[in-house]
């Protein structure tokens, strides 16, 4: 009786190209929209997870290993597996307007900002579960 599909919730994608990838809900469209008449949400996820960084690595190597490739996607709720984890990353400007994913340039720009946010969160060492690949 508690709504749990809220912005900040970590989810795992179940279908599509990014199946098995972890993502965080950025914006929720409960009732759907005209184009998508079903409950869906905008998620920002990790297309490429950061590699494992060890103590031996030089600064250059660490920087290279901590890189993340991000994706933004509108996903149906039924294609998500919610988890008990949350990721309170400030992705508000990513989901700015209803047309954040309208044109290709906007999408690329939004992806870039999401990538920066996720990378800096990874570097702090918090939310370690989110940045580890799900083994299946």
């Amino acid at each position, binding site marked *: *009786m*508690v*709504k*749990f*599909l809220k912005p900040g919730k970590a989810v795992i994608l179940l279908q599509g190209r990014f199946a098995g990838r972890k993502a965080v809900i950025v914006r929720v469209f*409960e009732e759907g929209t005209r184009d998508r008449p079903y*409950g869906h949400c905008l998620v920002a996820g990790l297309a490429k997870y950061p590699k494992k960084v060890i103590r031996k690595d030089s600064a250059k190597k660490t920087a290279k290993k901590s890189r993340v490739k991000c994706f933004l996607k509108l996903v149906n*709720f*039924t294609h998500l597996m*919610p988890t*008990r984890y949350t990721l309170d990353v400030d992705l508000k400007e990513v989901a700015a307007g209803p047309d954040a994913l309208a044109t290709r340039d906007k999408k690329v720009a939004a992806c870039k900002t999401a990538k920066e946010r996720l990378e800096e969160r990874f570097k702090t060492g918090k939310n370690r579960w989110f940045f580890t690949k799900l083994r299946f």
Partner: protein
Amino acid sequence: MLFSVCCVLLLLVVVVVLQKKSTDNINNKLQLVMKSGKYTLGYKTVLRTLRNSKAKLVIISNNCPPLRKSEIEYYAMLAKVTVHHFHGNNVDLGTACGKYFRVCCLSIIDPGDSDIIKTTVMSAGLSAASPASCSVLWCRYIPWQFGVASEFGCSRN
């Protein structure tokens, strides 16, 4: 030490008695819900109602595939909804709902005139489904000052 043992035995007796009565009770309550309340039958709709937080109670048959069962339980844990494990398979649950088909899981949205929600929440409190929540709930009923709870390592998890 002896008092805590007596406490545990009393609790077990109470749980057994309650479970005995509730197997036939749940069928009657379910009948009332079918008549007067709102419900959905089936895995897809159960997940849908859990997602949009309309579900108040979820009932799962005992021959539900374990992966599906744990998935529903996980969703219910996130949504803070009680899950009742029906003492019967999907055929029995279908019959209990008054349907001529098998029902593996169902979700009650509005109990109508029935008090099924209250009674299942009560009995779920005494004999919880998952072991983790079981240990937490069990700890609540043992008096803390006897130090029994700390022996079993009860903690907020």
